[in-house]
């Protein structure tokens, strides 16, 4: 589903001494099927922006369009439940939303609410468990007896079980071990490609942004600061430093390499091994 923000502003607690403008005149377009990373310093409005995507909040000003659904301040949205079944959000620290007696019931909670049949839910659970890295034995356990990382995986499974068309991820790997982070991100990327999902990822990891996204949007204090291809936006060291962000290590390395040897290697998501071979070729070529 295509997503469009048109001049969107959002004010928390409007008309009170606590009024706070969290989003300021934001416009952008996300094409169906793309992987978009939203980056910004803490408090820049990322989570607020995400809540517009399934109608949890309505823009104070402007209009948000998701597929055929329109959100604006003066209109009431029809079929909001339908919209929510199509846009799955994995919130920041989603493990706080667990409540059922068993892991199985908690994963089934979302699909049940959206009217998915029992047998279908069962087959989805069987499919999702290995993907999120949970053993089958865990289905019968209480979600509150699990470790933090396992709880996170259960919560993610609960969102995936709805089979959304748009997957919205708010720092889904924050606080996981490095290995777990990579597993989960790879799983999301795999789903994104196999099922043709539109994915919106909020992250603090520049590495993840440059590795997975085809488009990045950088927010600063509620404003859109930069937007474009990751390899372009994320190599602008000066602009990024201004808003307390860093260039991803890989690109930093390529820039340093260019400075040192005067040879440019374009970043095209190559693996470290591939890059080593490229460098070897270039440096050997320079010698001879």
């Amino acid at each position, binding site marked *: 589903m295509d997503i469009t923000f048109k001049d969107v502003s959002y004010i928390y*607690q409007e*008309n009170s001494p606590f009024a706070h403008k969290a989003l300021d005149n934001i416009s952008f377009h996300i094409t169906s099927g793309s992987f978009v990373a939203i980056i910004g310093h803490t408090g820049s409005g990322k989570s607020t922006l995400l809540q517009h995507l399934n109608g949890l909040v309505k823009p104070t000003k402007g209009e948000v369009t998701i597929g055929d659904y329109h959100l604006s301040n003066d209109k009431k949205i029809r079929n909001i439940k339908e919209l929510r079944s199509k846009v799955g959000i994995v*919130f920041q620290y989603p493990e706080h939303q667990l*409540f059922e007696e068993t892991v199985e019931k908690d994963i089934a909670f*979302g699909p049940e609410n959206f009217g998915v049949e029992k047998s279908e839910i069962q087959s989805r659970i069987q499919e999702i468990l290995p993907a999120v890295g949970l053993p089958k034995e865990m289905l019968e356990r209480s979600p509150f007896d699990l470790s933090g990382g396992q709880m996170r995986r259960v919560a993610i499974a609960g969102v995936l079980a709805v089979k959304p068309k748009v997957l919205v991820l708010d720092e889904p790997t924050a606080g996981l071990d490095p290995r777990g982070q990579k597993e989960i991100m790879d799983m999301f990327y795999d789903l994104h490609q196999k099922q043709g999902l539109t994915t919106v990822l909020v992250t603090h990891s520049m590495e993840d942004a440059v590795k997975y996204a085809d488009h990045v949007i950088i927010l600063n204090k509620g404003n859109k600061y930069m937007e474009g291809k990751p390899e372009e936006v994320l190599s602008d060291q000066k602009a990024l430093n201004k808003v307390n962000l860093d260039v991803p290590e890989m690109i930093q390395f390529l820039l340093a390499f260019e400075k040192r040897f005067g040879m440019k290697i374009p970043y095209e998501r190559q693996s470290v091994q591939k890059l080593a071979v490229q460098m070897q070729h270039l440096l050997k070529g320079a010698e001879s």
Partner: protein
Amino acid sequence: MNEYMIIGQYVPGNSFVHRIDPRTKITIIFFFVIFVFFANSVGSYGILTAFALITTFITRIPLKFILKGLTPVWFLIIFTFSLHLIVTKDGTVLFNLFGWEIYSGGVIQGVAISLRFFLLILFTSLLTLTTTPIEITDAIEDMLAPLNKIKFPVHELALMMSISLRFIPTLMQETEKISKAQSSRGVDFRTGPLKERIKAVVPLLVPLFVSAFKRAEELAMAMEARGYRGGEGRTKLRLLKIQSIDIWVYLLFTCVIIGLFLLRTY
């Protein structure tokens, strides 16, 4: 979520009212509440209303914001007003409303009681609006200190109060967060039959309780780790001290009270 809920909320500021000693504020409010019940004439009501409104004005908190935040209270006020209007049968008949005869006494009674109610709510909310929860509990601990003599756990009571006050906004935030997460999973808190809506509360309450207990445990541990062991021998970071502005406030309030009794009819 009602974003305008202001009961118990503190609005930071540096107005005259913000700077009054919290003990003074509590004392004044205590007597104000009592004296509101002594008002029985246009003049005495006028003086109290003027006093409350002027105080509100001095706080620099927009009256509109306060009035809006008291929405739940408005229903009560309108309800009491209507009740008096319909039930009281004093004075002359003014007009006929849908078959009910409205008496002049009813209107007067209705206005008086609603105004009383409004003044009480407005004035007491001014305390929490201009005083931090810490100041309020410090003041209460100080004012209840004599009870220590009869082994009443004043410090513990004050601590419990300040912790609860401190965590009200946190719990509200948490509620909002979890309700958003569950709404995204298809829970409908707003529409549908009552039975379904009651059932919808479970996915909200369970995580809320779990996190509240977890938070309480962590707080207790953090306090112990930092050497907290009760009130005995504990000194205070902020010392409460009566200043000249407090004296002025007391003098002014005494004038208001004298005015009130002069204008009262017997």
